[in-house]
C-alpha cells in the first residue's frame, strides 16, 4: 500500500482590501463588483497572490495597502521579494472593475481602479499577461495556485479561464 501525500486544496477568500498569498494546490478566490483583483503568480514556485483593490487612490486615507490601486503593487512586490521572488519572474493578471449601478460618483470607480493599476504596474516595469475587466456584472474569480489559471464566473455565462 502506498501512502497518499497529496495535499487537499484549501480555498482562501480574499475580501475587500485584503491581500493573500497561497501555494499550490490552494485556491484564492474573490467576488468583485467595481473592485479589481490584481493577481500575481510565480510559476516556478507555484506561489500566487491576490489583492482585492477597492479604490484608485489612497490620498490621506488610512487602511490596508491592498485597498488602494496606487499602493497595492509595491506592497505585493515587497512581499514577493521577502519570499525571494523578483518582479520579472511574475505573471500579472487583472480582473474586475465593473460599472454596475449607482450615482455618477461611483459608476466610474471600476474604470478608475483599472487605469490606476495599469499605471502602477507600468511604473514597476510590469505588463499584465491577461485581463478581463469592465462590463456591468459581478465576477467570482478563482486563482488556481497549482496552474496559475484564473477562472472568472459571471452570472448566466460560461466560466472563462485566463
Amino acid at each position, binding site marked *: 500500500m502506498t501512502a497518499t501525500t497529496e495535499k487537499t486544496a484549501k480555498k482562501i477568500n480574499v475580501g475587500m482590501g485584503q491581500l493573500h498569498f497561497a501555494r499550490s494546490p490552494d485556491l484564492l478566490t474573490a467576488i468583485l*463588483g467595481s473592485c479589481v483583483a490584481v493577481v500575481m503568480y510565480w510559476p516556478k514556485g507555484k506561489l500566487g497572490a491576490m489583492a482585492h483593490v*477597492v479604490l484608485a487612490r489612497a490620498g490621506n486615507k488610512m487602511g*490596508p495597502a491592498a485597498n488602494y490601486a496606487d499602493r497595492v503593487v509595491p506592497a505585493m512586490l515587497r512581499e514577493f521579494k521577502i519570499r525571494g521572488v523578483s518582479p520579472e519572474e511574475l505573471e500579472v493578471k487583472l480582473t474586475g472593475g465593473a460599472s454596475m*449601478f449607482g450615482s455618477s460618483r*461611483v459608476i466610474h*470607480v471600476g474604470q478608475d481602479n483599472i487605469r490606476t493599476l495599469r499605471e502602477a504596474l507600468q511604473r514597476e516595469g510590469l505588463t499584465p499577461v491577461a485581463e478581463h475587466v469592465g462590463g456591468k*456584472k459581478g465576477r467570482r474569480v478563482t486563482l488556481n495556485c497549482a496552474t496559475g489559471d484564473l477562472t472568472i464566473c459571471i452570472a448566466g455565462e460560461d466560466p472563462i479561464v485566463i
Partner: protein
Amino acid sequence: MTTSESSHVTENPLARIEQLFRLATQEASAAMSRWTGGLITLELENVKELPLEQAMEELGIGDDLLTMVVLTMDDELGGSIILCFDEENGRKLAATLLRREVENQSSWTELEQSALTETGNILGCAYMNAINRVISKELVPSPPYFIQDYGASVLEQALMEQALYAPEVLICKTRFFHPERKLNWHVILVPTQQLRQLFDQAMSHCSEVTQ
C-alpha cells in the same frame, strides 16, 4: 421616549440614524403588509458601522448568486436600497402577487421580475417617504433595477460611495416575517456620507425638540 433616552440618542449619532431607520422601517412594513394582503411584514435587524473589510462578513453575504432589486436613494446624494430574496421564497412572493402557481422555469419570467421590481419600488418609496418627512427634503429614489448577480458584488458597489470618503461604512439591515414560512430576505440600506450628515442633522433637531 423618556428624557434620558432622548438625551442618549442625541449624544450618539449611530443611535440617531438607527432611530430614523426604525421609523422608516415601520412605514415600509405597513406598505409591505398592504401590498401582500397582510402576509409579510418587516423590522429593522441592526444598524452597524464597521471597517469596510468586515462589512461583507458581518452581513453574511457569501458568494451565492442572489436575486435583488436595487434602488439608489437619490440621484444627487447617492445611497442604495438593496432588496435581497432567496430564490424559492422570492418566486413564491411573485406567484402570490400574480395570483398564479410558481413558475418552474430556471430563469425568471418578465412578469415575475416585474412583480419583484414593484415590491422594491413600494418598499423603497415607503422608506424614502418616511425619511423625507423627517429630514424635510425630497430625496427621489431611482427606478428599481432587477439584478441576478453575486450578492457580494452588488453590495460592494453600494458600499463604494461610502468607501470613497471614509474607511468605515454604515449598513442598516432589515428582516422579513411571514406567519408560515422562514423568509431569507433582507433590505439593506447603505446611505452615503452626505446622506448620513443630513439624517444626523435632522434627527439631532428632532431630539432637541423632544427634550
